[in-house]
């Protein structure tokens, strides 16, 4: 696994953008200006970046209700995402979808999804299209530990295996389905145990380590592109915030998140590794930090100032003509 300096900086920028996007939303949501719900991805950045760094225009992803990170990693415009979350007309979906329905088909982002377990069936379709059209594309569903218990996921795993689709099922196991511990609510001890039942390989990776995710993702994607079929990858990971903003998180230990931030922060670990190995200068990454903060700040300012959809917009985008 060799990554150039440019690759390393790209990965760092991707993760840092996700982190700052979420940290800022955490602050802004508390002001009451943002409509609807937001589910923050902070802490899980290495998963989205580790997979999406391998993707290009041929590839499709489907996300979850916690979809900001995947959207940014797949190349969705940060300004348009922020406007969407604020419910503004300049948003990616015209301000009518909000956080849980961010989608950008031009970028191969099939959508965040308010339906738990809604993503896996979508990628079976995208995977079948890629296979039939011989594009060499792959389709990835990011699913939570709660979503992985849904029937839609089980059907999709079966279908992808039977049709040998170029699909990856990525379980981002952050330990809680809303407030229910996965240790309590998941029948198997490890999601990879389910893979053999669908006749596909299953592996676990440490989601705090970008390099571990990146390498595993690369191998699974290479396998899928070359006709090897689907894989199941469990990314063991943690979220820094509640299930949704406003969640009191009474189900978590008192210092749980503090300890995670101090010891398992994927951005901190990434910087330590690349700086320690003298592969990228701290100054280069500091510059990324500054640029990302400015980008997020600008996106919030513009989103706040942008106009809302009008009454006439209510009747657009309702039906699609094929």
């Amino acid at each position, binding site marked *: *696994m*060799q*990554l150039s300096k440019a690759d390393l900086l790209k990965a760092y920028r991707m993760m840092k953008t996700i982190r700052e996007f979420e940290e800022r939303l955490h602050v802004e949501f508390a002001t009451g200006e943002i409509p609807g719900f937001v589910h923050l991805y902070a802490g899980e950045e290495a998963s989205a970046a580790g997979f999406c760094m391998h993707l290009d225009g041929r590839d499709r992803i489907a996300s979850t209700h916690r979809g900001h990170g995947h959207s940014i990693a797949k190349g969705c415009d940060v300004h348009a995402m922020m406007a969407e979350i604020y419910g503004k007309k300049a948003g990616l979906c015209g301000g009518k979808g909000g956080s849980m329905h961010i989608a950008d088909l031009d970028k191969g982002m099939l959508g965040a999804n308010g339906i738990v377990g809604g993503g896996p069936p979508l990628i079976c379709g995208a995977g079948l299209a890629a296979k039939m059209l011989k594009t060499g594309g792959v389709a990835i569903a990011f699913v939570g530990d709660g979503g992985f218990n849904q029937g839609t996921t089980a059907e999709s795993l079966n279908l992808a295996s039977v049709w040998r689709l170029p699909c990856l099922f990525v379980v981002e196991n952050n330990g809680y389905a809303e407030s229910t511990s996965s*240790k309590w609510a998941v029948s*198997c*001890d*490890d999601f*990879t*145990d389910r*893979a*053999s039942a669908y006749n596909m*390989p*299953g*592996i*676990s*990776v440490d989601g705090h*380590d970008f*390099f*571990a995710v*990146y*390498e*595993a993702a690369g*191998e*699974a994607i290479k*396998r899928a592109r070359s006709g090897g079929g689907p*894989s199941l*990858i469990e990314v*063991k990971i943690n979220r820094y915030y509640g299930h949704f903003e406003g969640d009191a998180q009474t189900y978590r230990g008192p210092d749980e998140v503090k300890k995670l931030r101090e010891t398992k922060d994927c951005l901190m670990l990434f910087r330590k*590794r690349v700086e*320690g*190995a*003298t*592969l990228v200068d701290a100054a280069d990454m500091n510059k990324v930090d500054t640029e990302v903060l400015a980008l997020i700040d600008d996106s919030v300012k513009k989103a706040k100032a942008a106009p809302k959809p009008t009454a006439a917009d209510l009747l657009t985008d309702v039906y699609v003509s094929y």
Partner: protein
Amino acid sequence: MARSVARVGIVANPAAGRDIRRLVAQASVFPIAEKRNMITRALSALGAVGVNEVLIMPDGAGLTHRIVRALRAPLPEGQVWPEVRFVDIEPGDTAADTLDAVRLMVDDGVGAIIVLGGDGTNRLVARAAGEVPLVSLSTGTNNVFPSVREATIAGLVAGLVASGKVTRAEACFRNKVLRLSVNGVPRDLALVDLCSSPELFIGSRALWRADGLDQLFVSFAEADAIGLSSIAGLVRPISRRAPFGLWLDLCPLERASRVIRAPIAPGIIVDVGVETVTTLTPGAQVPLRLKRGVVALDGEREVEFAPTDQVLVSLAEDGPFSVDIERTMIVAAQHGLFVRTGGSEISAASGAA
């Protein structure tokens, strides 16, 4: 003479057997449910040979939960299980759990530790086990150090050694070990093989690509081994008991003095170029050729090093003790330890076979 309290430790790595080699090769999967079953079979055996207490490493991955449920269920008729205690660590589901748990087991005076894992798990246990002998059962990917044995038999031999029914002198042998130091500070060890590679990152840990492998050091090399040590084993087999190891400088195939086709991971048989082969004597400090890269210990990338680091490898004869399972059972049989009634004379066979 038997000890008054016989204690045995059990370390089962819940993560063993789940790494990327399931994706890039056809490595076997070892479900947690089966690890639980192995532990319960070992408990039955430990109880049968008079072990009073078993200390188990807790985990957060579900194994502990399953064992607790097994302990609550009625025992099969006629079985007596030892008292089971989970050692007092807060599981973080990292390698540190194993080190912490083994240290506590050693402090509590266990007479043997049963290890369920692959070479990587045994490496961790070895770092903390001191003089306590290991009974190593394979549940990992590259399994050269541990053997594929029935857990019941592992429980019997661990109990026989821990209770003193078979002496350490009769049952145990000492392993060699490869030691790694970085900038003069001891960093880690390998039980079977240590390999340097120009890969920049530890990444998903396993090392399964042959291209780029730079130097391979082995404490022993079996011709029928799986993993990187097989390269050495197919050049010059070296037993676990031999007082030396081997060191191979590897190279691209076109520059190789010999090319070895070796099973470097389950299902992966590749050609590897060998430049030179040197006997590795205990105590010799060998610097790595590469200036930047990673060091894999027993098949897993563990240490990243930069041009500023001085990395040295050496072989030592003071590795962990292992229980020789077959030898222990033979000694037990010779001592009649399993004969419950009657004499030990065996009549000559008569009549047609």
